[in-house]
């Protein structure tokens, strides 16, 4: 049983590391800011999510596990917000009401 859980951890954490690697490659190689942001947030969402999923069997239940999940959710919130803020800084959203002033 513990062997199966260890294998589960190794597989999940390794997959998470692959996503981090891919996200870093995307950050370095993609052509513009928006696609780079896309690569970066994928690393946060899936990479960190898989690492947390893999570590869940290794920590105390329920407090340790809840802390890990909270870390992942906070990283998701921060990543999504930073993505939106940086994205709108690069490409500002169309000003509402602009159509009225210029018919």
């Amino acid at each position, binding site marked *: 049983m513990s062997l199966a859980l260890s294998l589960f951890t190794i597989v999940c954490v390794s997959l998470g590391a692959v996503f981090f690697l891919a996200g870093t490659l995307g950050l370095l190689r993609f052509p513009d800011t928006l696609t780079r942001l896309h690569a970066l947030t994928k690393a946060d969402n899936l990479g960190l999510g898989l690492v947390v999923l893999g570590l869940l069997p290794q920590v105390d239940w329920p407090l340790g596990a809840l802390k890990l999940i*909270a870390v992942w959710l906070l990283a998701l*919130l*921060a990543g999504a*917000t930073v993505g*939106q*803020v940086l994205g709108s800084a690069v490409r500002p959203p169309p000003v509402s009401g602009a159509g009225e002033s210029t018919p």
Partner: protein
Amino acid sequence: MSMSMSLGLVADSFLALLILGLAVWTIAVRGTYAAVVGFVAYGLLVALVWVRLAAVDVALTEAALGSGLMGLLLLRAAACLPRDAAVPASGRVGRVALRVVVGVLCAGLTAVLAAVVLQLPEPAPSLAAAAAQVLPTTGLGNPVTGVLIAYRAIDTLLEAVVLVLALIGLWSLAADGAWGGRPGALRTREPGAALVLLAQLLPPVGILVGIHLFWTGANHPGGAFQGGAVLAAMWAIVLVAGLAAAPRVDGRRLRLVLVVGPALFFAIGLAGIWWADAFLGYPADWAKPLILVIEAALTLSIAAALGLLLAGPPAAEPGPGPVVGAAGQLSWKEQSSTDEHR
């Protein structure tokens, strides 16, 4: 055993190389913003080093204050500096020379520190055993908090006072007409919907984490400075998102919050002359509750001081609501002149 040790050595070496590389990049990079971003990442990596050295208290402080708070202050300073293109060529040459001088001085300091560390006797002199031996008399479980609030309480008291002095220094940068008004550095013209959502979702969690850091500091890594820094960060997010305005700096209640921590610390320290025959001494049975009261008040004052340091000096405000311009300017000028008459 040796396998895990060598793995740790590989990880530490990689971390050290990463930090050195990032440090060189931060100094060499041209853009001021890029340098600040490099500095923030550098601080987070240094926090990882402190974790590797089992100094989690220092790691928390480095991440919260050294990297996060300093990073925000430096970003604001960078926003006030002229863009690189606006600096004349002669100025650029001077800046390169300045960077070289700073780099050489820092490298020299690092070399001296490295030489000192390498010449330490084996085992290195340490007060750790003595500190751990007396720790039970304070009722604390975290030796770092014991050092900060009991053994070296005078240092911590002065640190708390220095924060208030720093804030007075910052406020003295305000224009005469703006004195007494609201700090304006964290105002955003149009915070996006995502930022507003973050400012609504994160503070409940962050306030809980800040209070937890203060409370757990008695027995585990944490304490007033780390908890206060997290609380200040939550306040800063709310200010940036425009969900609340910074308080007027001439408010009586705000100033009370700012000084309650250092003042209570000082008062309990003075009372120690009668209770425990020493300034900043605690009576044996009351050490733990007194320390917790001091830490709670310090957390509040530190959070307020750090938040106000981030919020900058009082600035002329455009006036609440959609009315911006001459009328708003006039109203706060009248306000400030009545303040001067008081």
